[in-house]
């Protein structure tokens, strides 16, 4: 039986007349890395805030057996998150942050955090105010990755960091943190950088989940064909979800049509997650 970390039924949230989440249903199983992808204002953060017990909601939501809106403090023993902006208290010293987390969090492993930090240039005796943006994020990630949680939620975790650090971070997330007993939920705009580590994706648009699938499944679902000359009509007859032409050749994207059929039309290739997202969001992919 699959164990679920999050189960939502009819989850809704409105701000006045604006419906940020429109009665969505979803389940996140244990042992996955789920990418939540959507445009700004699509409802990603609203959904994550509900899961984390940071805001009220309508509908039913169960996170690791807790009702997050009522039991945020109990939930935070098993759930960790980094919000989308720098949130570490600027007046604290690095070592004071470690002291604090060690005192309040039963699942925090200080030695592990120090090990992560020893691989960075973060100075332990400095105030967070004095750290660079990159160092602040490194510290926060070191803290979070040293907490033995079942669910880790990262909202744009690498925003403002350089490419080398971003690569390193996803690498260590995969190698040193993730295992079958944990679920990681990530939102980011840099889809290309996470697509190789994701096991599942969820596309959100205007407060609704427009697609929820496993990565393997998804990349087989969408196929792009460089249509050979003379086969355009045949290609159109199969109803591509999007069409474009490059170097005088038509390129068509198909959803849910088997590869062998498409291979007769021309050269096929898998679509990247970013392209799948765009194809889905432009409406034709649904």
């Amino acid at each position, binding site marked *: 039986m699959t164990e679920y970390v999050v189960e939502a039924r009819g989850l809704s949230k409105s701000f006045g007349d604006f419906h940020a989440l429109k009665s969505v249903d979803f389940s996140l199983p244990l042992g996955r890395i789920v990418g939540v992808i959507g445009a700004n204002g699509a409802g990603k953060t609203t959904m994550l*805030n509900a899961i*984390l017990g*940071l*805001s*009220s909601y309508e509908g039913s939501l169960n996170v690791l057996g807790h009702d997050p809106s009522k039991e*945020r*403090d*109990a*939930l*935070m*023993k098993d759930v*960790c*998150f*980094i*919000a989308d*902006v*720098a*949130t*570490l*208290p*600027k*007046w*604290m010293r690095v070592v*004071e942050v470690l*002291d*604090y*987390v060690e*005192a*309040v*969090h*039963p699942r925090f492993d200080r030695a592990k955090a120090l090990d992560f930090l020893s691989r960075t240039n973060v100075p332990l005796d400095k105030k967070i105010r004095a750290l660079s943006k990159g160092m602040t994020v490194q510290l*926060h990630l070191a803290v*979070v990755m040293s907490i033995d949680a079942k669910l880790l939620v990262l909202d744009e975790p690498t925003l403002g960091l350089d490419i080398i650090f971003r690569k390193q971070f996803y690498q260590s997330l995969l190698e040193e943190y993730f295992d079958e007993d944990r679920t990681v939920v990530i939102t980011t705009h840099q889809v290309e950088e996470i697509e190789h580590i994701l096991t599942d994706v969820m596309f959100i648009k205007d407060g609704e989940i427009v697609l929820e699938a496993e990565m393997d499944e998804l990349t087989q679902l969408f196929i792009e064909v460089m249509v050979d000359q003379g086969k355009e009509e045949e290609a159109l007859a199969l109803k591509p979800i999007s069409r474009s032409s490059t170097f005088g050749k038509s390129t068509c994207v198909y959803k849910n049509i088997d590869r062998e059929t498409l291979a007769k039309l021309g050269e096929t290739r898998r679509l990247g997650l970013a392209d799948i997202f765009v194809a889905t969001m432009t409406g034709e992919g649904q």
Partner: protein
Amino acid sequence: MNIFKALVKREILDGKSFYIRTPAILASLTVILLVLSTLIMGEIHLDTSNGGDVKNIGEGMALLQEKEPEEVSSAVTLMYWGITMLTWFAFPFVIFFSLLGTLYEERRDRSIMFWKSMPVADWQEVLVKLFVPLVVAPLIFLGVTIATQLVISVFMGIVVLFQGGPALEMFPLGLMFTSWFILLGHYLMGMLWALPLLAWLLLVSAFAGRMPFLWAILPPFVLVAIEGIFFKSYSIAKWIAIHMGGWREAIEDRIAHNIDGPRDLFNMIISAGLTESVAITFSSVNMWAGLLIAVGFVYAAIEMRKRAI
């Protein structure tokens, strides 16, 4: 318990300049001023009413000991309190601004998202943010005062010794000890009365989007003005004044006014007042009603904290 300690420690670290630097600087200033003035003045000439000519503190002490020995320790203790009062002038400001800033700043600098990612309940956070300014801060101030008074007494003891006065009289430790505890008692009574006002500051700090200072001051002011203009009465202003310390008026009627010398003064200010204070405080419906309002404000602050992101 571990969480409570960690939260208290965090609050003190956050308010280090309020809770530690402020009293430490003022106390150091007090000691420096005292030492300098003693060194510069060196000799003072006072014509006492008894006709004797007193040249310095040592001689003054000797004279006092000779004429009215039973007044000496009270006089010395009162003098130490008088000197260390400078530190306490900052105290109301420390309480006011810590309460007003505590739940506001964490929202402004977004650190609330970090605090909320820890397994600490909102009620624990809010209660600690009330507890630290109200209980820990005065204890730190008192600690600094005690240290300062001890330093001053050693200094005065040496001065008086060199001036040939009764140096041992500069250490009325028993009375000083009593005064520390009794003043703490006075503080606790005052705090119980002021709790609705203090809890209001905490609530403002929890909801104000910006300008918490105006939010703290303006609504009560407007209420007082409306009552004054339309009803020609001032019950709200009076209620606030009573809770800010006006309740002590009732004590003054009860205690003796024929003060004759430092000992009576000491008794009036420090010891006799306390039993009366406690009696008046706990028998006052007004005080209990205020506490109820305070509980409401704190509850509202906790609910605001739960929703804040």
